[in-house]
């Protein structure tokens, strides 16, 4: 168990190192997130709809689109020079490969979110400092769930034609439950309610995370084993 986790961290570390050397996908995903925020800024009428009403939607649409872009990366880098075959040949349990990929993906998406969140607050002039811990917790819980499904799907879609288009097609339905509850949780927080008023939403996100991570770990073996 400890060994499997150590291997998972090693694989995640490798992915993060590879990414930090080029920074291409991380940068492009971050820039993409900022562009989505900008598009939203021009796609609304601030005199008709108060920013605070629209804010949860803007945040979560940006996060979900940017995550898909960020997750496409995980297995496309492995395709070059048949690197993934090397990983599969290594004496590493499949579960560790999955967890490693999952942790690396989670790190990428969270970095993109960490770039997008301050800009989101800045662009839309939100006064939500007191709600920030709750929002960060919601972001963490919601992201942990759909990244788990996204990691399995990105391992599948690299083997198909139109991989970049296929991932959002498969993944977006899996983003619906976390998004519904993330929006339900962030909206009261933006309105200044205390964290204790959204505990049910957070609990739902946690249950979703546990279920989807478990089933992903179990099914990932079937994706990579021929």
């Amino acid at each position, binding site marked *: 168990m400890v060994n499997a986790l150590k291997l998972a961290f090693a694989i995640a570390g490798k992915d993060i190192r590879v990414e930090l050397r080029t920074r291409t996908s991380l940068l492009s995903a971050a820039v993409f997130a900022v562009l989505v925020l900008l598009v939203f800024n021009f796609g609304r009428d601030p005199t008709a709809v108060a920013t605070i009403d629209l804010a949860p939607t803007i945040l979560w649409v940006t996060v979900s689109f940017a995550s898909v872009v960020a997750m496409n990366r995980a297995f496309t880098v492995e395709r070059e020079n048949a690197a993934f075959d090397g990983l599969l040949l290594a004496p590493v349990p499949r579960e560790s490969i999955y967890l490693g990929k999952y942790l690396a993906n989670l790190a990428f998406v969270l970095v993109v979110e960490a770039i997008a969140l301050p800009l989101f607050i800045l662009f839309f002039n939100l006064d939500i400092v007191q709600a920030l811990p709750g929002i960060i917790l919601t972001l963490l819980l919601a992201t942990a769930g759909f990244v788990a499904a996204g990691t399995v799907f990105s391992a*599948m879609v690299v083997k198909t034609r139109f991989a970049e288009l*296929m991932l959002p097609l*498969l993944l977006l339905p899996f983003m619906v439950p976390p998004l519904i509850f993330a929006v339900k949780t962030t909206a009261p927080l933006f309105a200044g309610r205390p964290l204790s008023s959204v505990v049910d939403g957070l609990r739902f996100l946690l249950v979703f995370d546990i279920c989807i991570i478990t089933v992903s770990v179990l099914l990932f073996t079937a994706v990579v084993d021929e």
Partner: protein
Amino acid sequence: MTADTDAARGIITRGVVLTLLGLLGIAVEMVLAIKFTPVEALQGPAQKIFYVHVPAAVMVLWVAVPLAAIAGLLYLWLHDPRLDRFAAASAEVGTMFCLVVIITGPIWARPIWGAWWTWDGRLTLTLFLFFLLLGYHTLRSAIRDPNERARFSAVLGGMGLVLVPFIHLSVYLWRGLHPKPIVLKPSAPSLPPEMLRTLLIGFAVTFIFYLGLVTLRYGIQLRDDLKEAADAA
């Protein structure tokens, strides 16, 4: 080889017969629903669509999709290509029933609710199930290797099996407008006997129709697989 081809042809014939039987049954059910079942007091003739909508919905949510997902998971365990063929056929027929549900629902909702669409729990669930099924077929069509195709679609089916209860739960807690179940509920069905009779006949004939289409689809896939194997050899 020819024995296999004959078997495939036999399955296709059986499928055609069952499908025609199902269609005939549905026609009889339509006549029964329109002519020999009382008009609902509050909703008027709009309620008649219930006899198409509910059997189709039950077929996709409780038969076609769960069976496809379970067959996929069994495939991951047993690696029997028959299971994959069945899963694909059931998912495809399920997609058709899902489309029937999504089309008939708004036709009923417009006069009764005054809106074609609301983001009610069950509507949202059905819509996302439909997209999930479309994703399933798109994924299948994008993979050439049959083993890989079977494995990947089984994985997607298994993930979907976990997802659907969550969509259901999340939209249920969100808001609800759709009529509650009236037949499959803990107490006795709250439906006049004539309406219940028509509905039960609807379930039966729709199930025969489903069986027919799945058999047909399975047979066609088997024939194509055999042909491909023969061409490759």
